[in-house]
């Protein structure tokens, strides 16, 4: 335990935390409270007045089949994106750990995609897999795959998942590489002497010791898939075809800013907030119990 820091001045500590509090207040609590307030109002078609309707908006949103669809889409998208991004990153990190010559070079190359903005990344994948002009789409069609993400919802989903995961791989990779380096080499050697083959060593020694990193990345990737993938979805599919890639965040945007149904949109963002808080709480409450720190 570090000793408590005491300030001789009564006001100084408050001044020191004021900027942080101001930022949190202005950019988080204010908008959040506005959203909660908005979610209880309904506007007339011309936006001239609004009336208090209580939980009506929530009732309507939750009984909307499109909203239920959006929850399903988000669940599939989030789980797939997080798993894909983490699995590929872990695989690459383990491989890089074995490279001796030019390791830094590989690592640098691996990190680059993270510097690409989400919308740009989305455009990149859109162009590569665009049915009419994409190189990869052409190759897929020559290989006999009927590739058309503009009409086929499953293919569109696959495309946004891969694009979103691709962008997050670099980030996960960095953390996995650092995590792998923190595992003492003698543990792996001891396991080798104890007769564990390479695969066994990975699953019984390396993977459990990597758990703190994996858990941290699980939280980060879930949040990423929920919120930060908006740009990619917007650029690649725009939520289509036929709402098959419309995630919760995308629907909030669509209903609020495109269709201007502010009450519904606000109610959705409140629900979204609750979902994310609940998810994070579950992750910390249950998953973290299985994690051993050092």
């Amino acid at each position, binding site marked *: 335990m570090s000793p408590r820091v005491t300030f001789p001045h009564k006001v100084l500590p408050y001044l020191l935390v004021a900027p942080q509090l101001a930022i949190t207040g202005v950019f988080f609590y204010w908008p959040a409270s506005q959203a909660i307030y908005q979610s209880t109002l309904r506007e007339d078609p011309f936006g001239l007045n609004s009336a208090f309707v209580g939980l009506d908006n929530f009732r309507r949103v939750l009984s909307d089949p499109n909203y239920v669809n959006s929850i399903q889409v988000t669940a599939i998208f989030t789980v797939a994106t997080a798993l894909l991004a983490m699995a590929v990153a872990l695989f690459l990190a383990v491989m890089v750990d074995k490279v001796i010559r030019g390791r830094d070079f590989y690592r640098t190359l691996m990190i680059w995609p993270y510097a690409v903005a989400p919308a740009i990344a989305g455009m990149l994948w859109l162009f590569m897999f665009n049915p009419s002009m994409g190189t990869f789409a052409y190759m897929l069609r020559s290989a006999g795959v009927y590739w058309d993400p503009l009409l086929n919802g499953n293919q569109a989903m696959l495309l946004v998942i891969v694009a979103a995961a691709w962008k997050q791989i670099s980030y996960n990779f960095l953390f996995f590489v650092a995590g792998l380096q923190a595992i003492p080499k*003698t543990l792996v050697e001891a396991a080798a002497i*104890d007769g564990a*083959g390479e695969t066994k060593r990975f699953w019984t020694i390396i993977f459990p010791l990597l758990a703190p990193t994996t858990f941290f990345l699980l939280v980060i990737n879930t949040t990423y898939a929920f919120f930060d993938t908006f740009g990619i979805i917007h650029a690649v599919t725009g939520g289509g075809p036929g709402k098959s890639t419309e995630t919760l965040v995308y629907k909030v945007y669509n209903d609020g800013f495109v269709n201007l149904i502010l009450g519904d949109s606000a109610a959705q963002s409140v629900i979204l907030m609750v979902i994310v808080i609940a998810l994070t709480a579950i992750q910390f409450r249950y998953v973290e119990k299985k994690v*051993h720190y050092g």
Partner: protein
Amino acid sequence: MATVELNGVRKVYAGGVEAVKGVDIKIADKALCVLVGPSGCGKSTLLRMIAGLETISDGTVSIDGKVVNTIGPAERDIAMVFQNYALYPHMKVYDNMAYGLRNRGMKKPEIDERVKRAAETLELSALLDRRPRELSGGQRQRVAMGRAIVRNPKVFLFDEPLSNLDAKLRGQMRVEIKNLQRALGVTSVYVTHDQLEAMTLADQLVVMNGGLVEQIGAPLDIYEQPASTFVASFIGAPPMNLLGSEQGTKGASLTVGDLSGLGVTVPPGTTTLGVRPEDFRLDAPAAEGLRTELTVVAVEPVGAESFLHGTASDFRMVVRVPGRSSAQPGDRVPVWAERFKLHFFDRNGRRVQA
């Protein structure tokens, strides 16, 4: 159970550094062989080559008469105790010990029996459900030992296993390791930089320096007949006084002066004369030997003995006297040593027989 044999073993790292420059060692069955030397002498590299954790650049390593150069660490049937213990932090003590047995597909009841027996031997029975981080340094050390003995391997390898313990515990564990090794009768290779550990544990002592073996032998033989100035100054504490007529070639710190003032006739070729601090006597000279007068600079009383640091005919030296010493800094004390207790070395630092 097994012999270990090294023949012309060399290790050259990718950068061109030669860590081990051709080593031949033959370790008898059930013997405890200690590799001792300063850091960077190649002793750990040698141990890791026996373990199979480093490739062997040249020469052969044989265990039980079989060359193991190309065999992986798991198939060599060895167990190793690491300096930092290398316990699996996410496993309980029981699982740490059982891990190697499970990997070899042993049946559950037998694993259970072996782990329990090892735990009893090492007084770990009450700790089997703990995780390594809940144990003290000494307990972790025992678990590391336990993990080695449950396997019942052909060879034990110890890589400075006591260097992370405090001095008192180290002395205690040293005795335990020795007893355990003798009781189990498993051929062992033990690496340390601590000459006291080396002397007390070894059946066979290998003194290494700069990637080469300086001397192999029984600890007391090496102590009494060091093959070189390096060995002479490395084995024994405080180290042997090395009095040279010219600067030595390597490793050993010697003090230079005129040997003729000491009243000894040295064998031809001798440039360095060695005397252990405990071989000096303060009584009246009764035989042929070295005679000089020590000007005391400092007195170190240790309790059972005292060390007089001083100079005599240009040489710095340390003299051990039993019990309490009445000498004061500045005193001149006549000292002498019998001729057969003296060691002679040539200009290359090699021993010259008297």
